[in-house]
């Protein structure tokens, strides 16, 4: 990936009380690039992901998205967030709205699109993730895998410039992980810019352009997946990989 940088983090620091969860993090994600962030739990990878759309404000350093610095709370921040899709570990579909309403809410309320047009696009997105037949159900009536696919469709409905995935398969039963990863892989193939925090090493291997390894709030090493999995340079990464790949 040699495209211009879409997301740039420079010298980012974040504390939770005395805990230094992000330590001088520098990261640049190019347009169309798929970056997978891995690392042990508590390493700060989720915080890093959430900092990119300012769900987690940072204490120092700077984050730039598409050439603009992240604004403080307010309308400008809301506008920026509408350009960055986010998929959460716990799906977070709006419990009081149907599947279709979940996907339509952003385009209608944030973009001011006509409901008819938003509905049409929402249905085609639901078609794409294979949930169109459930459009009138409520989230609680769907399986976890289905809910997460709806959450991806909801993020796509905003036609975002990038998608953030915060452990999208960690809350799923094992047999449902595949269906969500399939959708993510097809998005990656279509050239979507993606930052994916995950424990799915298979996905990192075949879909990522670059793997970023984090530990203790630091970005320890980054490399192509082939390079990283075959030849990790740091001891922390070697140790991590030996623990997860031996079973």
């Amino acid at each position, binding site marked *: 990936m040699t495209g211009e940088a879409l997301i740039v983090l420079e010298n980012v620091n974040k504390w939770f009380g005395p805990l230094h969860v992000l330590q001088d993090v520098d990261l640049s994600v190019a347009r169309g690039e798929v970056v997978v962030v891995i690392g042990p739990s508590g390493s700060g990878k989720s915080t890093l992901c959430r900092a990119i*759309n300012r*769900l987690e404000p940072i204490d120092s350093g700077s984050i730039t998205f598409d050439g603009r610095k992240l604004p403080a*709370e307010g*309308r400008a921040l*809301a*506008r*920026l*967030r*509408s*350009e*960055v*899709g*986010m998929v*959460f570990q*716990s799906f*977070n*579909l*709006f*419990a*009081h709205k149907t599947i279709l309403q979940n996907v339509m*809410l*952003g385009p209608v*309320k*944030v973009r001011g699109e006509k409901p008819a047009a938003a509905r049409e696009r929402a249905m085609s997105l639901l078609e794409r993730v294979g949930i169109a037949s459930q459009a009138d159900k*409520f989230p*609680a009536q769907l399986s976890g895998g289905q809910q997460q696919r709806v*959450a991806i469709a*909801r*993020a796509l409905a*905003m036609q975002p410039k990038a998608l953030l995935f915060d452990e999208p398969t960690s809350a799923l039963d094992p047999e449902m992980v595949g269906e969500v990863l399939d959708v993510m892989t097809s998005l990656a193939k279509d050239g979507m810019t993606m930052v994916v925090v995950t424990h799915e090493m298979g996905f990192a291997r075949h879909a990522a352009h670059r793997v970023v390894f984090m530990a203790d709030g630091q970005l320890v090493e980054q490399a192509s997946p082939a390079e990283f999995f075959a030849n990790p340079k740091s001891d922390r990464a070697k140790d991590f990989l030996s623990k997860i790949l031996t079973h």
Partner: protein
Amino acid sequence: MTEFLHVLTDHWSLFGKGFGNTVKLFLIAAVGSLLLGVLLGAFRVSPIPALRWFGATYVNIVRNTPLTLVFAFLVFAVPKLDVDFEYFTAAFVALTVYTAAFICEVVRAGVNTVPPGQAEAARALGLTFAQVLTQVVLPQALRSMVPPLMSVLIAMLKNTTVAAGFSVLEAGAIPAYMAEFGEPQFYVLLWIAIGFLVLITPLVLLQRFLERKLAVAR
């Protein structure tokens, strides 16, 4: 028994006028305090520290002041500032200001029952704070807000009787008039209690209806 009935039928117009004013006072103050209370509740959960501070201070001061003092302040103190209040208006303002503090807390408690992920997902879509509240959080909070909200409104309906002490002819003022007519106080009070039961019943039914309706909507 006939004497009991005559207490009501002989003074129909007084009861009508008294309870009529009670209902009027209640309805206007209910709308006013719901609007103000939801606004204050939004302040208390807003991302802006100054608004949160204002909401918390309002609740701490107003909720901890006896209602009669709030009335007295509006009826005796505020006119000294050259603001001319009708007694009825003063009663409406006092009830609204007082009840809004309680409604604010019901709203805040309701908002806290909604998982934080719901608001996060809404913010991540690009919804503004007001949209996050009105589109996602409050509709889901409403379910748990209905029972305490109705309790606050029922208490407010009964609180309207405080206005009798400040020259408003409402249900609470009836006993004083009836005493002048020499009617037996016990019967008078019994009729007033019955009157309030009749007024509160629709609120209880409304609560049941809302609880049922919001229970299916998910």
